[in-house]
């Protein structure tokens, strides 16, 4: 089974269209979206419409949660005063332009999706969340303490956990050893961002999860992740920001991938 997972499009229509073109060429078995469709660019309605039209199973991101409720808080952790000011402009602008039907779509998105596999008669649980299983806006960065990350996954009964939110892709393999001494591998996978990467690479990013027909939690090789980067018209997305009342800093972020 090859499952494509993407997230954090953030109203970047050129990036979303390039993503669809790329993923359609890769013959995957299913596609899921982990949220944050809107914010920071000018195409929130168009992005929602494209995902909607394809009937893609989608969970809510923190920005979707905020806009769905016409809130002025997106739950984002802005650090500097500039970031906070810019953030206010972005959420006010997004609230203003998102139409009723599209807002209703965001309002009723589910929080989590879980896929329960039973290959070889053994359970294998794949959990999709936006930030973390505990909070829609918790950042799970790559340098997270291993014990803390394991605890989060054990509490959520997740053998494979896929999430976005930080816009920085990674795959960490964790081993929670069982009482009988056998390995039980857990995979923590940040799937990166389609429309606002922050890892220094301005190309859009997503993942394809490969699950073997005989995949087991005790066999770490039976579950693998492919990180995919695709080119898109970054300039068109950056220019759209500059041509709007959105802060120009967002255009620069797109050009630099940060």
């Amino acid at each position, binding site marked *: 089974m090859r499952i494509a997972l993407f997230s954090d499009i953030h109203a970047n229509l050129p990036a979303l269209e390039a993503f669809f073109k790329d993923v359609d060429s890769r013959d995957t078995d299913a596609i*899921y979206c982990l949220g944050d469709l809107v914010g920071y660019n000018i195409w929130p309605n168009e992005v929602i419409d494209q995902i909607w039209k*394809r009937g*893609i199973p989608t969970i809510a991101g923190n920005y979707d949660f905020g806009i769905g409720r016409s809130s002025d808080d997106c739950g984002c952790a802005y650090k500097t005063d500039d970031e906070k000011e810019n953030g206010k402009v972005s959420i006010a602008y997004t609230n203003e332009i998102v139409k009723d039907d599209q807002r209703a*779509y965001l309002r009723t998105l589910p*929080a*989590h*999706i879980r896929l329960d596999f039973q290959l070889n008669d053994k359970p294998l649980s794949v959990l999709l969340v936006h930030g973390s299983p505990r909070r829609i806006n918790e950042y799970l960065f790559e340098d997270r303490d291993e014990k803390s990350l394991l605890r989060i996954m054990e509490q959520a009964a997740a053998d494979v956990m896929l999430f976005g939110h930080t816009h920085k892709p990674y795959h960490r393999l964790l081993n929670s050893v069982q009482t009988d001494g056998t390995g039980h591998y857990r995979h923590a996978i940040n799937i990166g961002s389609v429309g606002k990467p922050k890892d220094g690479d301005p190309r859009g990013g997503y993942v394809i999860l490969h699950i073997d027909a005989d995949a087991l939690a005790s066999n770490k090789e039976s579950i693998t992740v492919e990180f995919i980067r695709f080119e898109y018209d970054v300039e068109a997305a950056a220019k759209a920001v500059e041509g709007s009342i959105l802060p120009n800093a967002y255009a620069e972020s797109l050009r630099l991938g940060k």
Partner: protein
Amino acid sequence: MKIALLSDIHANLPAFEAILEDLEKQQPDAVYCLGDFVGYNVWPNQVIGLVRKHGIATIAGNHDLKVAKIMPSEGDCSKEESSEYAYKLVGKKERDYLLTLPRHLRIEFQLNDQPLNMLLVHGSPRSINEYLLQDLPEQYMLELVREFKADILCFGHSHKPYHRVINSGENSIEHFHHLINTGSVGKPKDGDARACYVLITIDQTASTTTQDAVQVEFLRVKYDVEKAAKAVELSLLPNAFADNLRKAY
């Protein structure tokens, strides 16, 4: 949120194509399929090809797992009528697809600061083969939805669509559970030969204490039943399967 659920296509390509056309009109927000892509007709590979092309999220049905045991014949071409023929037709790539499908899909909503869990299974949460028929005792169903934490339990397998609401609430606090049988796209057994699927609309006010915020609509779609029945008759499959399609039993 408007969610379309399909199930029990059973290799019936004309029925599935008619449903896909209808989905274009309905424009649901998400589409899920509850398994049983194969068996009883001649187009398993074409059906799976379309499901994959449309990226429809899917779980396994009991017939899908049969391909692990029934392989294509390697000897001389058989001329013997057999229901096993339906599984022998399934291609290598399609077998791999069917045999790595998840068993259950759980969609957790938190629309009003409390969870509302939707669980998708093929037969029942306990077994891929169990029939959850409409007239099962309420106590049995209550135990099932409690054990598996399902506020909206969706399943197929019996090919007989229904929607039933039960209440597990205690101390005058209501807790509604929706039991939804999706019916069958490609082999209805409720006397109506048209293809069947279900649209579930989840309102933003939806919670376990509100009953009407989850609306369930069964859609019946006309398709070329004769084409599907003739395909059975021209194949090594038992002719009874054609009669099943024409009369929906």
